[in-house]
């Protein structure tokens, strides 16, 4: 007797111009199971989800829902088949309210008109599932990035679904909020629904999933296996395709007596920071931890002159400075900023790798009449492509064609090319797979060893504890404390949580 | 197709080798009679070819393109309404240097010089003056007059404004003129809106309107009729819409020009010049093709007068202006 699957995809194949994103991949979801879908960046996870939800058409393969073959060629058909989804990218209509965004896929109507009362009540219901008390009439633009993500999740819960597909829903929300999601996931499991969960955070996966499938280069290398029959390392090895050595935290020696190269004293900003004091020495990694929305990105932006510092002083290499623009930060003070928002602020998707790296140094490469030789640009690019191990077919490849991790490296490379001495790195590994993450960690340590002063912003506590030398904790736009990092996860996390909860009732 | 250079050969050529191109400034009802008049001229004088091409669309460089293309297609005599009176001499010069016969029709180049062989056109200022006089006459010699006209930065518009001003000045202050309403010939909606706004704002004081542009004339005819105000309207040109308005009394008079004469006589002269049978006694001479006040009284007969003028024009060229072998 064959089992009936809530969803059964067989031999799905999908090619994009130049890449085979999926190669005869099969996936089976049983009712009442939470199924993890893992894989490195570009393995094909999102592509699989997009095919199951009618965004892309598979070149080949079949999909069956509850044992019956279904043709899914549009998002509407996926909905009709009882498939709900939270996509990886945030996709909301900014002009609409929260409520309308939640019900967008099926507007409640009465007598040919939109039934606004039902819109509101339905939206409230979905938000309540996640313990959210956002008013459905709030304009979408008022929400923070994390709230937006939560609304996306609420939207996935709007229609009655038998199968819920979650593509990295927790990448940009804090552990607290993620927990609410997992409560819902557990409830769905109890109701006999099937949930597919994609994440690069393996802790979450091990805490909440039952079965696992792993994709590698578009092929399924592990199909529907009970998750707990595997160790964490085994899963990583399967994802990566070879044994990945254990992460070695280097023994870093910091000269405590060295003067700070970047120091803030009692800084307040136009966006609402107050009493911010911190100092980074050259060769040191200062972690800036906080929950999403704590104001870390905004602090970085104030250092760069994008927001105004209204009180206190900012000192670079011992002298007080006023920075008005990124350009000034770079040219006068050698400060660089690797943004958290890679696609929108970090790289130029439609431009070549060489130009993306050289963008900060044209001023230096410039000869008479503004001439910049393509050769010098390329040789510079080649250095960093080699140095950071950026995977490209050639330097004229467009950055938009690279995988996320490689794009992130390009976003970093331009600051190294500019020979910055102070580097602010914001959320360097969001949505980045475990192997690339490792190479990033090594890179950050190496840069610090070479003498860079690094201010590292991350919402990933494990990452923070691994990388930083000291950790400053920010909450509600103020620094609530600073800790020396012992690299012991349990004790560090407790101290940090205490610093956050000291001022905030969760 | 024959090479254009052959037209410049020495000695006289037969009229059958002359291909005349009539090039208006762009699409406008004024030029439509040229089509028939050109065809008649071709038949009557035995010209080798005749074309009418209005693709210039009121742009000097497009008109130059059209003219050049016609030249390449073997046309060797040109009757041109220059889109830009300040630029057209340059075009004429080029054509002349290739040995073509060139007539400036319906409009003369701005300034004192005319690089065409001749200019056969309404004396714009005189026509406007006549229109102004007719309006003042209709107003009973006193009152407030307003002048509606087209593109303010066209030198012909400036001549029209001067003509009307002259007529007003002759009344020694009995007629006063409101500021000219210019730039409303771009389209019918603009014209109608401007006229309606004018009547709404100043309708009570205005006693006469003279329109020296097409769309404002069409618009004013209806607006005045509808408003029920006692405003005398004088228009320009004899488009059927305006003639109908004269017949029903909503327009007092119009100043008709002589497009037929321009095209017909112009083609004749171009034929004579192109075939080298004749030369101009005074190159670049300006000849008035006539303007005619049309009122209800002569609306059915004014064309006879105009045909007579056309005949006279032709003999004037033959007898006094041309120097023939």
């Amino acid at each position, binding site marked *: 007797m064959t089992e009936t699957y809530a969803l059964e995809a067989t031999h799905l194949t999908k090619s994009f111009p130049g890449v085979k994103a999926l190669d005869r991949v099969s996936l089976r979801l049983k009712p009442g199971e939470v199924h993890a879908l893992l894989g490195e960046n570009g393995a094909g996870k999102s592509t699989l989800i997009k095919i199951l939800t009618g965004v892309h058409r598979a070149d080949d393969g079949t999909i069956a829902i509850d044992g019956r073959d279904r043709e899914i060629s549009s998002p509407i058909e996926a909905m009709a088949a009882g498939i709900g989804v939270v996509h990886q990218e945030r996709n909301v209509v900014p002009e609409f309210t929260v409520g309308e965004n939640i019900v967008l896929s099926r507007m409640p109507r009465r007598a040919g008109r939109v039934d606004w009362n039902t819109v509101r009540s339905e939206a409230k219901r979905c938000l309540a599932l996640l313990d959210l008390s956002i008013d459905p009439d709030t304009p979408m633009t008022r929400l923070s990035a994390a709230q937006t993500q939560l609304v996306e999740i609420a939207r996935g819960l709007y229609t009655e679904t038998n199968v819920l597909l979650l593509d990295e829903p927790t990448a940009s929300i804090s552990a607290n909020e993620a927990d609410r999601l997992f409560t819902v996931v557990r409830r769905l499991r109890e109701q006999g629904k099937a949930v597919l969960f994609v994440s690069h955070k393996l802790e979450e996966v091990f805490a909440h999933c039952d079965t696992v499938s792993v994709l590698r280069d578009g092929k399924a290398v592990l199909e529907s296996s009970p998750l707990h029959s595997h160790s964490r390392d085994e899963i990583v090895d399967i994802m990566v395709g070879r044994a990945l050595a254990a992460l070695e935290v280097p023994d870093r020696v910091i000269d405590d007596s060295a003067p700070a190269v970047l120091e803030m004293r009692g800084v307040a900003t136009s966006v609402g920071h107050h009493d911010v004091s911190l100092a980074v020495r050259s060769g040191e990694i200062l972690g800036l931890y906080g929950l999403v929305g704590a104001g870390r990105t905004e602090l970085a932006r104030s250092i760069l002159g994008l927001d105004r510092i209204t009180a206190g002083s900012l000192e670079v290499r011992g002298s007080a400075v006023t920075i008005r623009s990124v350009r000034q930060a770079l040219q006068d003070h050698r400060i660089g900023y690797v943004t958290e928002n890679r696609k929108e*602020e970090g790289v130029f*998707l*439609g*431009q070549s790798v060489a130009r993306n790296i050289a963008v*900060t140094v044209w001023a230096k490469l*410039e000869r008479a009449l503004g001439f910049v030789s393509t050769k010098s640009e390329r040789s510079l690019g080649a250095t960093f492509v080699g140095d950071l191990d950026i995977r490209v077919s050639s330097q004229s490849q467009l950055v938009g064609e690279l995988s996320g991790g490689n794009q992130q490296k390009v976003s970093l490379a331009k600051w190294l090319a500019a020979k910055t001495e102070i580097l602010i790195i914001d959320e360097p590994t969001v949505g980045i797979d475990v192997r690339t993450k490792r190479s990033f960690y090594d890179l950050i340590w190496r840069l610090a060893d070479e003498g860079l002063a690094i201010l590292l912003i991350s919402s990933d506590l494990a990452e923070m504890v691994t990388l930083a030398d000291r950790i400053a904790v920010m909450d509600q736009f103020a620094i609530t404390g600073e800790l020396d990092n012992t690299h012991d996860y349990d004790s560090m996390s407790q101290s940090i949580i205490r610093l956050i909860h000291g001022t905030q009732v969760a | 197709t024959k090479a254009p250079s052959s037209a410049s050969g020495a000695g006289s050529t037969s009229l059958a080798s002359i291909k005349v191109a009539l090039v208006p400034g762009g699409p406008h009802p004024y030029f439509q009679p040229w089509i028939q008049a050109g065809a008649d001229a071709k038949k009557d004088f035995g010209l080798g070819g005749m074309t009418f091409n209005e693709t210039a669309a009121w742009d000097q460089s497009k008109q130059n393109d059209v003219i050049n*293309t016609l030249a*390449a297609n073997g046309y060797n005599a040109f009757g041109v309404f220059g889109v830009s009176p300040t*630029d057209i001499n*340059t075009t004429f010069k080029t054509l002349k240097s290739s040995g073509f016969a060139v007539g400036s029709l319906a409009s003369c180049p701005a300034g004192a010089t005319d690089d065409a062989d001749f200019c056969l056109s309404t004396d714009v200022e005189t026509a406007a003056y006549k229109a102004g006089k007719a309006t003042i006459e209709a107003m009973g010699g006193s009152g407030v007059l307003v002048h509606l006209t087209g593109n303010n930065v066209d030198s012909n518009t400036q001549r029209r404004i001067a003509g009307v001003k002259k007529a007003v000045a002759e009344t020694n202050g009995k007629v006063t003129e409101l500021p000219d309403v210019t730039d409303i010939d771009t389209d019918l909606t603009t014209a109608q809106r401007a006229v309606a706004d004018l009547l709404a704002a100043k309708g009570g004081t205005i006693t006469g309107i003279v329109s020296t542009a097409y769309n404002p004339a069409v618009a004013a005819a209806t607006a005045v009729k509808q408003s029920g105000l006692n405003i005398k309207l004088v228009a320009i040109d004899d488009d059927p819409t305006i003639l109908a308005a004269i017949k029903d009394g909503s327009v007092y008079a119009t100043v008709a020009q002589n497009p037929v004469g321009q095209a017909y006589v112009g083609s004749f002269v171009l034929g004579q010049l192109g075939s080298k049978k004749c030369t101009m006694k005074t190159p670049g001479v300006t000849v008035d093709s006539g303007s005619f006040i049309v009122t209800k009284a002569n609306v059915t007969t004014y064309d006879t007068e105009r045909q007579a003028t056309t005949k006279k024009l032709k003999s004037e060229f033959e007898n006094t202006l041309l120097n023939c072998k």
Partner: protein
Amino acid sequence: MTPETQQHGVVRRVIATPRFFLAIVIIALVIFFGSVKPAFFSGPFVIAPLLTSVAIFTVVGLAQMMVLSIGHMNLAVGQMASFGAMFMGMSYDLWKLPLLVGLGIGLVAGAAVGGLSGWLVARTGVNSFIVTLAMSFALIGLVPTAYSALATGSAFIAKPSGLDVIGRDSFASFCFAGYCGPNAIPIIVVPAIVVMLIVGYLYARTRLGRELLMTGSNVKAATLSGIPTGRRIVLAHALSGLLAALAGFFLASSTGSFTPGIGDEFMLQSFVGPILGGTLLAGGYISVSGTFLGIVLTLLIRKGLDLFGVGIETLNVLLGLILIIALSTDRIRLLARRRSVKRVQQTDALLIEGNPL
């Protein structure tokens, strides 16, 4: 990749560009027009006027391409041309200045209004479409008013020495040892080629050009990479105004005088050339030679239809149809190319051309 496949790739890449496609169509049309209408090869009456228009409108297209490179538009190209040309006319007519001085003054005037648009865009963050639309409104009001106040007969007709040489002479007037140049090639192509080379050099070889493209590609990332995007935006608009004024100068020199009507016909052409040539409306990618070929194609078609004696109504209908057909085949061809897929998608996302999925 072996050198052989690499070469293969290069050839394929060249073949896949809009420029190659345009060149093929242009050659085919020339052969067609030439064989059906031998008059097409008439030097002084067809080729020379065609080249003159090509020279003028290539500069117009480049003026638009400047702002397209940063993802903006300039709906006031025509009015900026007439504004710049007005200052040239004033220099020659009222102040009796020599050719180059007047030209310089006009170019500065064009650059100034362009720069003003750019400054407004950068300062207020209002979309360039709106700012330049409003700018065109304002200049449509201003220029004719100034002409009627300052110029007798509403045109500046004084001609400094050399103006006619640029505008109307061909190489036939340059003789050396008894041999004169061809009368089919007007002098005006020389400055136009120089402008193309300078603009090409700017984008291909200089820091400024690269920074403009980066600004067009992603303005946030450009700001965060230390590019002074505000200044680059002002620069792009100023250069657009400058080139527009230069085109106005070319047009005035070829028709004969400086009138307020200069530039009336620029706006539509200015978009058609660059876009046919592959420049992205979304910014970040330009092509000088493509712009040139796009202009050649449209003017060639117009000339051809003129030669066949097509009337104004048919001419407009055909031009519209050809535009749609040329661009849809271009789009089909583009879609077949992997590299451009991404570009097209970027454009799509920005322009909402139907279903982005």
